[in-house]
């Protein structure tokens, strides 16, 4: 006797429930704690570098920012090149993505990845593939803030 084929597949709403029941929820609280400590540690290292430049070189608190960022990105470059930063990122999440080291990693990993397509169409064209939006919206946000500040100054509020 030929059996009838059971109705299949379920509707996508019904399936959503089945799927959710099996999905491991992301450990958000734990991820936040990890991100806080690793991100914090990176900032502490940054502060130490700043203090180092102020103490041993002719930098002030205002001017030490640039060499500090450059040093952090240089360290990131080494870590990314040796394949260590992505492992750290897997553990720390936002902790390694938010500081300037995350920006450096996004740029450097793309550059390494596209070396096989040459310097112009590979490295040059793809280096800012992931980091590009940070620059675009960073510059735009700075412009808007500067505009607001200028208006406030014109009105004599600040």
């Amino acid at each position: 006797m030929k059996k009838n084929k059971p109705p299949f597949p379920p509707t996508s709403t019904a399936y959503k429930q089945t799927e959710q029941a099996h999905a491991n929820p992301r450990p958000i609280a734990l991820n936040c704690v990890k991100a806080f400590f690793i991100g914090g540690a990176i900032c502490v290292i940054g502060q130490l570098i700043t203090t180092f430049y102020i103490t041993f070189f002719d930098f002030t608190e205002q001017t030490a920012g640039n060499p500090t960022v450059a040093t952090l990105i240089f360290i990131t470059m080494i870590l990314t090149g040796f394949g260590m930063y992505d492992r750290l990122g897997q553990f720390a999440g936002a902790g390694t993505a938010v500081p300037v080291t995350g920006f450096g990693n996004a740029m450097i990993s793309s550059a390494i990845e596209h070396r096989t397509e040459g310097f112009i169409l590979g490295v040059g064209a793809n280096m800012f593939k992931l980091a590009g939006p940070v620059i675009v919206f960073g510059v735009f946000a700075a412009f808007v803030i500067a505009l607001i500040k200028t208006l406030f100054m014109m009105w004599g509020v600040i």
Partner: protein
Amino acid sequence: MFTGSQSWAYSTSPKLLSGSAVGGPKEAKGPLAPSFDLLFDDLWMEEKSYEDAQQRLMEEASTLAIQKANIFDEQVDFFIGGDLINQITPTNFAASTLQIPFLGTFNACATSMESVALAAAIIEAKGANYILTGTSSHYSSTERQYRFPTEYGSQTPDTAQTTVTGAGCAIISKDGEGPIIKRATIGKVHDLNITDPFNMGAAMAPAAADTIITHLHDFQLPISHYDAIVTGDLGSIGREICIQLLRDVKVSVTNEQFIDSGILVYGGDPASFAGGSGAACSSVVAFGHIYEQLLTKKLNRVLFVATGALHSPLSIQQQKSMPAIAHAVAIENGSDE
């Protein structure tokens, strides 16, 4: 030959004459390492790019499959295969080296069984004597096409899967000794609105379940007919969902019977997240490990269900959901029944 709603029964018994599996460094550390014919300890494989490395994998696996079948290159009538990289270039380039008349196939990670089903159908129609089929994938070439640069420090969730570096090939023949390709069911594309590319298992599970249910219905077989139902690359989460979907419609598959290649290939290593994936995941397991198990009669009746998520980087960026497909091929030892 045409059976039920979407299946083929092969009456001329096309044989799986030989199988070969080639892998990379991560596969060499996995529990299936002994079933590989060749393992590379470096992802570059002495090539200039990861795409070239993937082509190399495909060429090595093809050559090995032909050698193991004890036939000459010239005897192979057609080559049917594909991969995941843009316009299946690694396979195209390998086909250029092999100089075997070539049919390119793409159904993402379900390409392996799509190719076997087609090859067996061509043999059945007396269209060829020997057909080479195979698929390849490479962790780094796939990762950079579909996701982020490999060194980018993003956090990957546990539901994600790891692309297998490797290639698996087989020779399907009209005559000779070997496990027999008995049946095949061609799957439908199912889209249940899963949009997270790090959760392919959940997108593919309904497609796998549907193909298995349809296969059993088309051939009026109980699930107990098969010693093992081997899915392509559902991973740990997709496998659980698929088992539940089957049990929901009273297909009582047992946990021991339901094997997933993605879990098998890395042995549940947490660093591989939910398990392996990629076009090579199903082919290295099918033509390496499972083929060995069939030859040694540890398994006699296997339903191999290769699953594929049919998305592209562009469709994901446009927030489209991931449609999925599954094709089933039944491989059995010649028996007394």
